[in-house]
């Protein structure tokens, strides 16, 4: 009844636009392009998914039969459904070769009556649906588009009707007009229109805010055009799903009313009426009389519901994995490289792959190694899709399912943690390793007070009592400079700004004084002025506590500010690594150099000073080249680069680099870098 944004599934589940979109914003790294086969249009994919879903196929077949039964019942029926045979022995006859399903209380052929019943069901749907869609969709569109007080008033009235039992509304119409199935369906139609109003309004409100609607208006398109050509198509898929499910409900309600004797006339071959007849005699004559109409009714409603589900699944995204799903254990091939001595966390040549149905699994991390020393900061930099987040998640045993670690070894604090069980990991995560994420508000549970969430790791991993944990949590908030910590403890996440929420995230990660802090794009979602303050906070805390930090970012400036060592990732591989001063002062890999050159900070010319560019785009994991993965975009690429993948070499000054030509390049072509000035 409230204007809650969390609409329930049955009423306003909005199938999301496209998979790709969701994969991109849902930050859990999914190899983009894995499922997005370029030639596979949504329409094609929709039908492919529909036909692969056995339940969807079942429902479509059932509708085919019903359709025939409705349009041309004589084709299927064997008898006239109204022809009575009052011979005594002919009443309540069991199935026979003449009467396949037997006869009813007047000796009428049961099978033929059931077949004719389909017509009543569809007629009901037709009447109720015409009213429901005819009233609900325009009203919802109008209300959502118009907004303001009128919208609120319309929705209030709508919600009142929405919350009344449909049967009751149908009864009211029957009372006012007169008992008949058609009249009842008028009432049902009005009741169901409230569902469509809600759904349409929700979609319209959402689409109205979409930038493409602004874009259309900027192009000078008129409001009706925008509604018809832009909003309506996006509404259609949700409407179809909703209509399928509501059709099932309409049949159910029609049957109930007929069963009560206030729907279809008592002679009609309507399923509800037949059930009503069956009710009078099942205690004496047995259950048979309710089986055929009951089965027809159930199958039809089921088919509608399954159809709705199938359409939803075929449009929407695959929900079969969640953050709880622990990725499948497979044999992990050991790494051939020794761990870095003295490192707090050392990752050696890990591979991560995602199974792709019917094809070779797609590798999205390939031989990634890294190490961080106690008290030091390692920066990982790369563009989106390069595998930064996946690397650290996999090192923590959090590889998102269905992805899995297939090679390599991870050592934390002198202990091999490559194949720890989930419960062993629970001892380490939060206690020895803290994690900070990119979207500071989204990682806080919206239903739980911030203070409680902050106390959680303390209660889990330390011996503190509840009161002590609360005390400690307040101290932590003060430590991360959240003003007024006592009051803030009892607030909910949505009352925090992004910057303040990120401070809470830091406090939470540091609550148990972990040895290692992993920060995945901790400032990307924040304003630049707030970003600086968050970085300051991290650095200060590191100085005080001696925590090691792994900081992931796509911003080389942030790396320059905080990192001691840096690794640069491209397309699932480490392409360069070393001390920050070396990487910024003398980049050896063409990609690192190109990245630095594209930054406007390194350009301060006037008119003619165009930015350096890296041509092309980061390829999707399915399209990674066989040779050097950067070759298609590299200005120094040779035939060798295109055929043979370079290996990671360790240079004399400790820098590692994956390029065939780094020696020649770092000589002349790179000369001049290092004298960056403002």
């Amino acid at each position, binding site marked *: 009844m409230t204007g809650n944004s969390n609409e329930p599934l049955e009423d306003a589940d909005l199938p999301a636009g*496209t998979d790709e979109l969701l994969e991109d914003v849902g930050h859990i790294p999914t190899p983009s392009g894995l499922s997005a086969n370029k030639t596979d249009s949504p329409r094609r994919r929709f039908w492919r998914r529909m036909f692969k879903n056995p339940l969807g196929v079942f429902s479509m077949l059932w509708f085919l039969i019903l359709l025939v039964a409705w349009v041309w019942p004589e084709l299927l029926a064997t008898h006239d459904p109204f022809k009575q045979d009052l011979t005594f022995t002919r009443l309540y006859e069991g199935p026979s070769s003449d009467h396949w399903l037997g006869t009813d209380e007047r000796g009428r052929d049961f099978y033929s009556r059931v077949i004719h019943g389909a017509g009543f069901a569809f007629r009901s749907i037709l009447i109720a649906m015409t009213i429901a869609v005819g009233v609900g969709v325009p009203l919802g569109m109008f209300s959502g588009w118009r907004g303001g007080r009128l919208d609120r008033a319309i929705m209030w009235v709508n919600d009142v009707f929405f919350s009344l039992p449909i049967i009751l509304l149908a009864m009211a119409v029957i009372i006012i007009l007169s008992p008949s199935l058609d009249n009842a369906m008028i009432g049902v139609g009005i009741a169901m229109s409230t569902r469509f109003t809600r759904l349409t309004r929700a979609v319209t409100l959402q689409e109205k805010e979409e930038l493409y609607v*602004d874009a*259309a208006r900027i192009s*000078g398109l008129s409001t009706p055009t925008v509604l018809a050509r832009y909003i309506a198509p996006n509404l259609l898929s949700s409407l179809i799903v909703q209509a399928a499910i509501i059709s099932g409900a309409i049949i159910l309600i029609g049957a109930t009313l007929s069963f009560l004797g206030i729907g279809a006339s008592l002679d009609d071959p309507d399923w509800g009426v037949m059930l009503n007849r069956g009710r009078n005699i099942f205690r004496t004559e047995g259950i048979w009389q309710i089986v055929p109409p009951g089965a027809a009714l159930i199958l039809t409603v089921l088919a509608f519901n399954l159809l709705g589900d199938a359409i939803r699944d075929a449009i929407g995204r695959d929900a079969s994995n969640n953050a709880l799903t622990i990725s499948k254990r497979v044999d992990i091939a050991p790494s051939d490289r020794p761990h870095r001595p003295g490192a707090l966390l050392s990752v050696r040549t890990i591979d991560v792959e995602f199974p792709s149905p019917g094809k070779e699994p797609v590798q999205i991390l390939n031989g990634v190694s890294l190490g961080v020393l106690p008290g030091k900061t390692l920066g990982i930099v790369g563009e989106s899709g390069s595998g930064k987040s996946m690397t650290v998640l996999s090192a923590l045993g959090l590889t998102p399912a269905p992805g899995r670690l297939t090679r390599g070894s991870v050592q934390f604090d002198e202990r091999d943690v490559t194949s720890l069980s989930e419960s062993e990991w629970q001892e380490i995560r939060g206690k020895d390793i803290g994690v900070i994420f990119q979207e500071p508000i989204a990682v806080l549970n919206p239903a739980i007070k911030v203070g409680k969430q902050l106390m959680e790791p303390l209660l889990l991993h330390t011996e503190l009592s509840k009161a002590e944990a609360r005390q400690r949590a307040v101290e932590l908030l003060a430590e991360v400079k959240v003003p007024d910590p006592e009051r803030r403890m009892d607030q909910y996440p949505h009352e925090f700004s992004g910057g303040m929420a990120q401070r809470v995230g830091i406090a939470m990660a540091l609550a148990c004084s972990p040895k290692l802090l992993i920060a995945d794009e901790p400032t990307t979602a924040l304003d*630049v*002025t707030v*970003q600086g303050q968050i970085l300051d906070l991290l650095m200060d805390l590191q100085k005080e506590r001696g925590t090691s930090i792994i900081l992931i970012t796509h911003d080389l400036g942030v790396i320059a500010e905080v990192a001691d060592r840096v690794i640069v990732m491209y397309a699932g591989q480490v392409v360069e690594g070393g001390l920050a001063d070396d990487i910024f002062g003398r980049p050896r890999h063409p990609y690192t150099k190109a990245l630095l050159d594209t930054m406007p*900070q390194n350009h301060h010319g006037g008119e003619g000073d165009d930015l350096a560019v890296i041509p092309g785009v980061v390829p999707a994991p399915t399209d990674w080249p066989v040779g050097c993965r950067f070759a298609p975009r590299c200005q120094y690429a040779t035939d060798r680069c295109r055929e043979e993948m370079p290996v990671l070499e360790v240079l004399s000054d400790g820098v590692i680099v994956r390029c065939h030509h780094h020696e020649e390049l770092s000589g002349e072509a790179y000369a001049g870098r290092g004298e960056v000035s403002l």
Partner: protein
Amino acid sequence: MTQPLLSVEHLAVHFAGRGRLFSPDPPPVKAVNDVSFTIDSQRTFGLVGESGSGKSTVARAILQLVDIHDGSIHLDGDDVTRVARSAELGFRKRVQAVLQDPFSSLNQVHTTETIIGDPITRHLAIKAGDERRERVADLLDLVGLGHEFLDRYPYEMSGGQRQRISIARALAVEPDLVIADEATSALDVSIQSQVINLLREIQRERDVAFLFIAHDLEVVSHMSHDVGVMYLGYLVERGPSDDVYAQPTHPYTEMLIASIPFPEPGEQAKRRGLRQTFKVAEPPSPANLPPGCPFENRCPVAMDICREEMPAVTQAHHGGEARCHLHTSGPELGGGSVVEFIRSEARGNVGV
């Protein structure tokens, strides 16, 4: 002096609060207050500021997408503050936009040809067909995309490619002014530079003016001839971009500059020291602005008067304007750069 292409005077946009059906409305959100600037034809004016500072709202006001509370907007001397329905078509042809999000600013259900073709049909009266298709193909050439993109849907393109389509759509009707709101912000670093270069090239070839909006001062000053810095709905500084960058006349501008991470450890360490002189505090809510300077609670050199009185606009040394009391009270900088003053004050505070 010729007339500016666009002139915005004392623009204010307020959003009415939205209460429940039977309760009074909360106070309005003052998203834009007293903003004035001009754009000459074939020039670029950049607008920076943090999230929620009102940049997009200024753009949306110019584009007639939100109601204006106060002030006026002129295009080539014609008052277009509230464009009449009859005149809307002409206005729409002259002012176009490239919007922030390359995913949602294109409708997923149409192909490139329709997306770029629709405005062509609307404004240039060229019906769908070979001629329109050819025009769209030419535009694709202009933005550096192959003709195979004509029949592609947005979901078949990368973020950078979608943004190029948006640019092509904006240019399709040969506008005089293109408003680019965060046109490059959602893109990867390597793609961002491609799009920035493209915009600059287009300006050279097509003689359009840009209003370029972004939250990254570095990108904005690279793109623009003049910049305006917004804070909580106010334009706190405005001037030629190189001068504003080098010699800012408002403490907030200085804070922005100091906050941009620089990809070189030595230089970055310097910026960091400067940045730390600014106070950690939450900006006030635009629904509840303080009577004085909105930046007061974060400003390292705030004075008593700042808490009480809204600073007036003063002439700045670079020819632009600044909205800060420092120029008329306290050190009375008289429109000069605030950099030295803030640094010496900061040193004073630390006791060096």
